[in-house]
């Protein structure tokens, strides 16, 4: 326990950064604010790396399927635990666990977080509220590391709520803009629905297992290997609701596109790379529960696949560069859920990590484009930026190719295992695989559409391009570009061998077939290539075609452009009835309550007005009342008899005599 005490350091530094920048930031010079903000994630990153760097390097350099993997199979975890709550039989400790899963997650959070902090220094240079921005960003990292390190459900929930708060604060960073403030509220409220499910799930866990600790639950499950309960499925579905809220899955995804109102680096960090993956992380962390419930796993897989396809179709026609990326994020998170649903947890986490690289890069590059265009986000007004911003162009190209799934880029290595795992899970899952494949096609298509519209062709607007991109923005782009190219070379075998002690599924997995895997890989790459070719045809060779297609299918195009009218449907069936009910309460019930309150207040103020007259300010009248009162009391005592009935026993004459007697005797003795 003592040698793990430094686990505190991981969340501590971002928290200190939050406090320093939050309290003193507005009075500090900007350089110091940036230094504090940037150093906090770096120090946390170094702490995690110093703990787990050695095992990661060993795992990365080992060859898969040979002896050194077996040596790593020990769960290398460190725990730090202090008592937190003890209520009756319930005991919840303040437990931090650093094992392979949380180490990988933390490295992504703090590493990518650090790069995005550096990028923010350049991006937010001219904004007011600079210190506020960095303090919120550090607050987010603090809560995210608490979430990831948490060794029990309750502490995880603390982090879970905390990142929701930080997300709200950062989406609404430009709070003077109504749309940004509304987007922040929307994200918070939709997340609250998910959190409600999560909370119910936690309560069910507590009543079922009498503990909230992940390790104790796994011990419990190991002791009863054949236990399957309906309650387990209910728990898993409740947890899924929570995960779907945080990770923007159907039907709770609606907050994420609106969250793009925040500053672009925030979209990159919170709404692409880290926070939205918390749902995937949570399912991977609690996979022992999901492993035992086929129904819940199927639900996860179906939700994931449906979200992936659904969001990808919307992404095809959006014109705001950040919205395209937002729907792309939702779609990729759907892939991760699909992977969780087919119990390929390490594939999900692998895709999570790779996605963090290339999606953060896509957002940062988009931010760089927006920065250069002077705030313009409409794809239709961009174009021809290839020569004007070469670094952004090349890094974004790497990210686009990576997300489209071309070898040897990161997305290829992480997406294929998911599709392969989905294909292997029996007959029903072939549909999931097919949906995943269609999504891969759409992903490639909309990403290359974005790429062509932004960088290729001729400039389509007179926007000024002489906003040069500062070095602090370019360096993170280049680093993330390198990671997007090379990150996948770790390989899923090494990665899952590394995660195996924590994330290996405890259920029978179908046997693989290398030839089948090869065929499927070829199919996936061909599909991605097809997506690129379609984009090339539509947006380079025949740029008039998209408009023709849209004109030929007006209803379909409108449906996609308006995002399937989901916001409107929710508005009609949930928000409107709620509003009507609230208005009824305001008009009817509230009026009654307010009436009672006004009546009580009226009585009090009337009494006051009457009593006020006594307070004449005339000293002699007060004195007269005093004397009259005293006289009245005396008279009352005289008329009702002995005063002893009202006096305390101490003043009874007998007691007085006894006391004085003792006093006299003592005095006499003293005199002798």
């Amino acid at each position: 326990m003592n040698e793990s005490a430094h686990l505190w350091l991981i969340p501590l530094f971002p928290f200190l950064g939050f406090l320093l920048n939050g309290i003193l930031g507005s009075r500090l010079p900007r350089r110091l604010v940036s230094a504090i903000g940037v150093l906090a994630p770096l120090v946390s990153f170094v702490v995690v790396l110093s703990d787990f760097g050695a095992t990661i390097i060993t795992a990365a350099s080992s060859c898969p399927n040979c002896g050194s993997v077996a040596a790593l199979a020990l769960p290398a975890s460190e725990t730090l635990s202090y008592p937190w709550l003890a209520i009756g039989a319930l005991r919840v400790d303040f437990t931090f666990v650093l094992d392979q899963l949380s180490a990988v997650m933390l490295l992504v959070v703090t590493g990518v977080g650090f790069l995005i902090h550096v990028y923010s220094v350049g991006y937010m240079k001219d904004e007011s509220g600079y210190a506020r921005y960095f303090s919120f960003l550090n607050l987010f990292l603090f809560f995210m590391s608490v979430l990831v390190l948490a060794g029990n459900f309750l502490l995880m929930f603390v982090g879970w709520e905390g990142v929701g708060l930080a997300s709200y604060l950062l989406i609404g960073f430009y709070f003077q803009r109504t749309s940004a403030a509304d987007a922040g509220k929307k994200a918070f409220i939709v997340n609250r629905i998910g959190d409600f499910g999560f909370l119910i799930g936690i309560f069910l866990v507590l009543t079922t297992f009498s503990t909230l600790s992940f390790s104790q639950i796994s011990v419990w499950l190991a002791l009863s290997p054949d236990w399957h309960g309906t309650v387990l499925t209910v728990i898993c579905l409740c947890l899924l609701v929570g995960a779907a809220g945080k990770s923007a899955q159907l039907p709770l995804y609606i907050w994420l596109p609106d969250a793009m109102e925040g500053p672009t680096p925030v979209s990159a960090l919170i709404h692409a790379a880290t926070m939205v993956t918390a749902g995937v992380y949570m399912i991977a962390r609690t996979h022992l529960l999901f492993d035992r419930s086929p129904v819940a796993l199927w639900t996860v897989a179906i939700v994931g696949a449906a979200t992936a396809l659904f969001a990808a179709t919307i992404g095809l026609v959006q014109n705001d560069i950040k919205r395209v990326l937002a729907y792309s994020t939702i779609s990729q998170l759907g892939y991760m859920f699909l992977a969780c649903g087919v119990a390929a947890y390490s594939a999900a986490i692998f895709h999570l990590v790779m996605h963090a690289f290339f999606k953060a890069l896509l957002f940062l590059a988009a931010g760089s484009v927006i920065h250069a265009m002077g705030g313009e986000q409409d794809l239709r007004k961009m174009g021809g930026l290839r020569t004007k911003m070469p670094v952004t162009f090349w890094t974004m190209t790497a990210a686009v190719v990576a997300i489209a799934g071309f070898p040897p880029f990161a997305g290829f290595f992480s997406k294929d295992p998911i599709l392969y795992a989905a294909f292997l899970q029996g007959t029903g899952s072939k549909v999931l695989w097919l949906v995943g494949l269609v999504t891969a096609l759409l992903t490639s298509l909309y990403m290359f559409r974005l790429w062509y519209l932004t960088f290729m062709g001729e400039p389509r607007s007179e926007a000024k391009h002489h906003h040069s991109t500062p070095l602090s923005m370019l360096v993170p782009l280049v680093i993330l570009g390198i990671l997007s190219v090379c990150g996948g070379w770790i390989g899923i075998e090494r990665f899952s061998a590394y995660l195996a002690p924590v994330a290996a599924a405890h259920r029978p997995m179908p046997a693989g077939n290398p030839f089948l895997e090869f065929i499927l890989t070829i199919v996936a790459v061909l599909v991605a290539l097809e997506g690129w070719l379609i984009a090339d045809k539509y947006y380079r060779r025949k740029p008039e075609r998209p408009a023709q297609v849209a004109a030929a299918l007006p209803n379909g195009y409108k449906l996609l452009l308006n995002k399937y009218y989901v916001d409107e449907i929710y508005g009609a069936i949930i928000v409107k009835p709620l509003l009507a009910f609230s208005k009824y309460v305001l008009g009817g019930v509230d009026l009654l309550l307010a009436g009672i309150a006004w009546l009580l207040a009226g009585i009090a103020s009337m009494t006051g007005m009457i009593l006020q007259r006594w307070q004449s300010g005339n000293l002699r009248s007060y004195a007269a009342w005093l004397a009259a009162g005293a006289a009245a009391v005396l008279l009352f005592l005289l008329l009702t008899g002995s005063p002893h009935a009202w006096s305390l026993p101490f003043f009874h004459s007998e007691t007085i005599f006894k006391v004085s007697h003792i006093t006299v005797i003592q005095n006499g003795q003293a005199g002798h």
Partner: protein
Amino acid sequence: MSFLQHDVPISWYLLLSAILFSLGVVGFLIKRNLITVFMSIELMLNAVNLSFVAFAYQWHEVRGQIFVFFVMMVAAAEAAVGLAIIIAVFRARSTLAVDRIDLMKL
């Protein structure tokens, strides 16, 4: 000393005390000058002191006499503070008529 107990019954002391107290009350109520009002308060305190002493003697009880010392102590403190207040009031308002010192009124 015993003749005192026989010759002057306690009721006389109490009667004197009551008369002095009533005079104090009446003075307090009808006088307009703040200093006179103040003196009336002293008169009431001393009337009470008298009955304390009388009872203490009657019951052979030392605490009554102790109480008298406390009352005298408090009266002395009150006189010091009270006279200071009176001087301050006079400086501020140039009058000592209680009816005209009514700033506390709402």
